[in-house]
């Protein structure tokens, strides 16, 4: 432990890393930065799925897009490793913070009150783990094709872009999946929870990173829930369109 403000010395790299990975503010910043990265991915992911609509791509366009992503080779694996790293840091830093917070109040109050905190902020610790389990399920479902994926392997599609390549029919698999009302409900609920998680997360991460001021603070309070709602709507519209027969 150093003395007072006068004796704080320039830090070595090890100290910088320690401050980021051990201090309460450093850990929070890690959660915020990784959260921002995951939100950015979620928006790209959502926009990609909108190509399921005939107007934006349909079976041909969506399968071409899926094939393009699958043929990125090393880049694909780099992206996957990056997403895995973002998720791991997000979760581990959060767990460390939760442990710190728990030990900061060993004895609770007899009467417990919430005054201003939003429902989204109060339920981060519930929505977070559920989303983690959902993401694992989602990967096993559409990426690994091992859960709720009967017949997916056999579904193939010949690209009409001149290459005549036969690729996995990502479009067909999704259509088959969401003709099942149960799967649709699971996915729509999950992206709904994602919206709740991010309604707090997006606004909160800017405050955590200190990227606010008198102008942005009120705007961010609105922008968080708004962007989160947009993301949920963008994700949910595809399975709902399939279930209702708009996408066939």
């Amino acid at each position, binding site marked *: 432990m150093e003395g007072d403000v006068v004796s704080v010395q320039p830090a070595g790299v090890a100290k910088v890393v320690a*401050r980021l990975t051990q201090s309460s503010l450093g850990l929070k910043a890690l959660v915020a930065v990784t959260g921002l990265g995951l939100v950015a991915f979620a928006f790209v992911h959502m926009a990609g799925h909108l190509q399921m609509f005939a107007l934006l791509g349909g079976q041909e366009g969506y399968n071409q897009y899926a094939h393009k992503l699958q043929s990125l080779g090393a880049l694909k694996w780099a992206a996957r490793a990056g997403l895995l790293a973002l998720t791991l840091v997000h979760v581990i830093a959060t767990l460390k913070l939760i442990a710190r917070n728990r030990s900061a*109040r060993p004895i609770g109050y007899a009467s417990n009150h919430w005054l201003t905190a939003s429902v989204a902020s109060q339920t981060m610790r519930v929505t977070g783990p559920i989303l983690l389990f959902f993401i694992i399920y989602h990967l096993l479902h559409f990426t690994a094709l091992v859960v709720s994926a009967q017949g997916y392997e056999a579904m193939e599609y010949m690209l009409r872009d001149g290459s005549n390549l036969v690729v996995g029919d990502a479009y067909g698999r999704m259509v088959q999946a969401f003709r099942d009302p149960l799967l649709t409900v699971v996915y729509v609920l999950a992206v709904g929870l994602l919206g709740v998680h991010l309604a707090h997360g997006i606004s909160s991460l800017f405050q955590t*990173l200190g990227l606010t001021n008198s102008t942005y603070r009120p705007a961010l309070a609105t922008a968080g829930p708004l962007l989160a709602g947009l993301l949920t709507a963008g994700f949910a519209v595809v399975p709902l369109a399939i279930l209702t027969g708009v996408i066939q």
Partner: protein
Amino acid sequence: MNLTLKVWRQKNAQAAGAFVDYAMSDVSPDMSFLEMLDGLNETLQAKGQEPVAFDHDCREGICGTCSLVINGIPHGPDRATTTCQLHMRKFKAGDVITIEPWRAAPFAVIRDLVVDRGAFERIQRRGGFVSVGTGHAPDANAMAIPKRQADLAMDAAQCIGCGACVAACKNASAMLFVGAKVSQYAHLPQGQPERFRRVLAMVEQHDAEGFGACTNYQECEAVCPKEISVRVIGEMNRDYLRAVLVGVE
């Protein structure tokens, strides 16, 4: 009016505490909350019982000594009000009022409702000051400070260090307190030379004391008797990350 008080009684830091019920009769709505407790203590002493220990000093809302979590809310149901400035007219006849001490690991209960807030003092000692030779008082306005900056500094400097922010925070974090102490200097020219060292030292002490981390619930802002804005937390976060990543020379 008649009330029932459920008061946390605890002999010392080591002893286990428990709630004890006290029936109060003829409480005047014009009494302050602490006067009501004074009344309880007079009754207890008359019966030869141990009075309830609680912190208080100026009783005019400026010293930050009084504490008390009243019905789950630090400083009670009134906004921007310390416990000493809370009046019994905010309660109804027949109410059951639960009175607890600040709950946080760094704020150990000394006795009943009195907690040790020395942790705040130790955080202050790490950087809650500017280390300049003071000499004689400078002439007024010798150092020009824009009104807006002076206002921002003054808003942060309103903090009386009572600890309600910690008591209200679900994580028992002291970030509003530390943020206020960091922000009050960050807006003034006198605070600039030590600006980034200050935030590193004070946050380090905050963590070492065992306070939790901020989750941006903003419950602290809602209970702060001086209405310190969570703006100061954002400013502290920015200065801290800048200090860590850019470094102090």
